[in-house]
């Protein structure tokens, strides 16, 4: 497990640390780099995370900097990646495990649900699993089957995890730093569709974005759009279209789904009186349903219209040619907003 090939040539030059303008993928890498610098118990493991730098290059350069003992290329064994992380985390390490695509997480579910999420409670705090499981999720990149899924609802229905989904480079770095420092297992879902779609100014120095705090991505007065991850961009785009028709949409980027920042969300809905929840995952049993329930519990009488959901359909995620029909689009969000305004 060396970072050099047979000729002794470095396979990857060590890239520059923290430039000003970073993509989400670079921001993710930056967060790991800083935390690995600051704490030698932070280690990375997963498939192709070492010499290859990760299939999305999110771990690029880490093996050259920290060596194969802290950046571990594992056998193709998702259950082992998480199961070993449980053993490592419970004995003092802070593993960052990468599942190459969220669609491949099923073999690791037993370890995630059966152990990582339960160890603290099971031992009444004697052992715990401070670990981050990073997984690229969602559609939009025209890949083969099993590469486009959004399974956050499974994890939100399993107590013991925190579930974090950044929508932009700044949050990606700050949230991942918080996740690595968190004392509980954190599922960190990375919107691969926008891994490299745009760049943001990201501070070179270390900073955190707290878990459990939503962001008002755009202020507005007529309707609240609630989203996370890649769907935040779709909502922002839709807001632009709506603005041309003098409809003012507020976009709440939840950033963390567990713990959920209910306060920010409800405040916005109370202000606008209308809510549209947008997510990529299938509709039935999706987190949108929970959000709608919580709004009903806490702001029903302030609502001017029924809550609308713009989500994936209750179908298997389509292969490349048809994924455009599945994914919530700007147009669908605009239509849903028009519907709540017309009620």
């Amino acid at each position, binding site marked *: 497990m060396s970072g050099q090939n047979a000729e002794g040539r470095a396979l990857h030059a060590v890239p520059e640390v923290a430039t000003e303008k970073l993509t989400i993928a670079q921001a993710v890498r930056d967060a790991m780099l800083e935390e690995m610098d600051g704490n030698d118990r932070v280690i990375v493991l997963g498939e192709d995370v070492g010499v290859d730098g990760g299939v999305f290059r999110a771990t690029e350069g880490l093996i050259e900097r920290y060596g194969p003992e802290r950046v571990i290329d594992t*056998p193709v064994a998702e259950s082992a990646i998480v199961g070993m*992380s449980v053993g*490592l985390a419970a004995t003092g390490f802070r593993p960052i495990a990468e599942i190459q695509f969220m669609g491949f997480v099923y073999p690791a579910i*037993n370890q995630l649900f059966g*152990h990582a999420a339960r160890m603290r409670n*099971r*031992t009444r705090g*004697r052992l715990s699993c401070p670990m981050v499981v990073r997984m690229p999720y969602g559609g939009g990149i025209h890949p083969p089957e099993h590469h486009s899924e959004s399974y956050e609802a499974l994890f939100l229905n399993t107590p013991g995890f925190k579930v974090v989904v950044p929508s932009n480079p700044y949050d990606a770095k700050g949230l991942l730093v918080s996740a690595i420092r968190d004392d*509980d297992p954190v599922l960190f879902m990375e919107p691969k569709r926008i891994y490299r779609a745009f760049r943001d100014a990201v501070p070179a120095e270390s900073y955190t974005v707290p878990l459990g705090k939503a962001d008002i991505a755009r202020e507005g007065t007529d309707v609240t759009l609630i989203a996370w991850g890649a769907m935040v961009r779709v909502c922002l785009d839709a807001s632009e279209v709506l603005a041309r028709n003098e409809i003012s949409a507020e976009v709440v980027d939840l950033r963390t789904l567990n713990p959920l920042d209910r306060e920010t969300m409800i405040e916005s809905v109370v202000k606008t009186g209308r809510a549209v929840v947008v997510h990529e995952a299938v509709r039935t049993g999706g987190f949108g349903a929970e959000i709608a329930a919580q709004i009903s519990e806490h702001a029903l009488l302030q609502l001017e219209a029924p809550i609308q959901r713009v989500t994936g359909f209750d179908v298997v995620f389509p292969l490349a040619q048809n994924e455009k029909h599945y994914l919530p689009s700007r147009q669908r969000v605009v239509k849903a907003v028009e519907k709540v305004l017309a009620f």
Partner: protein
Amino acid sequence: MPRTKVYEAVTERLEILDTEGRVDAALMPEIDPSRTRDLYRDMVLMRTFDTKALKLQRQGRMGTWPPIKGQEAIQAGVALAMGDNDWLIPAFREHGIMVLRGVPLHLVFAYWAGDERGSSYPEEVRCFPVAVPVGSQWQHGTGVGLSLKLRDEDAVAVTFGGDGSTSEGDFHEAVNCAGVFGTKTVFVIQNNQWAISVPLHRQTAAETLAQKAHAYGIPGIQVDGNDVFAVYAAATEAIERTRRGEGPSLIEAVTYRLGDHTTADDASRYRSEEELEEWEGRDPILRLRRYLVEQGLWDDDQETVLLEEAASWVDGQVKALEEMEPQAPEEIFTSMYAALPPHVVEQMQSLLEEVRS
């Protein structure tokens, strides 16, 4: 283009103490006579508390209990081979070795009586909690072994599971990864030949479970699991090898579950009285007693004293169990996270209002 042999393997079996209590002097490991007596005491203690737990269960003072009767030699032998700093990663039929490693018996009882505090061991006890999902603990054994290797710590991870668990994918992944990374892990299979109602030949077409080690490039050995000296010798060899940094290894200890799978099971539904009687004749405790008596290291008076002491110690542990204050209702919430999220706090408060009204 020749067709050549690229790999050939031999799997050994180790037996030292026969059912009559005679040992093979050439293979006998060096054990001080007083340690041999301790081994016997350990095994009798296990049998005593196992029997007690079954009684408590029948009286409604204990939940479902998986008995360890017949498997005492494996647990005593491996425990003796382990060092103070070594980690134990058990499955769910390892109460014997857990207690020998320092887990208070009343906590073991508490866990099986339905109290999570039973898995909150004292800080200095290096033992994972019981793992119920079959085979999942093997992966933790590899992870802890990797952890110890990365930290260059003078300790090894000893992880246990049953014959049925070797059919799980997690067993394959765990032993495979241990081999790849050279983790400080020793895998101990308690092959008691029955996974609830399914016999070993329906778990695998392989002649032995030990030979599976070859497929992962690590050493493996089969031992007579009812022979405490063979278990101790094999465990010492494996643990010391791992401790020296020479990588993981696997031990298949062949034994027999003399009891039911758990108190919720009735083994007479699927296995014969004859088979049970045959294995009762190979009882690991009887065998060691015959050896001790033969060597002049044990007599009836010592036996009487030991049985009294064991019973009285176990009674003390039952008392400690029954003196535990009940958990407060909020304890179902308080260890879910390092810091409870607001929605969990709300739910906890609603429960408290309900129980107080």
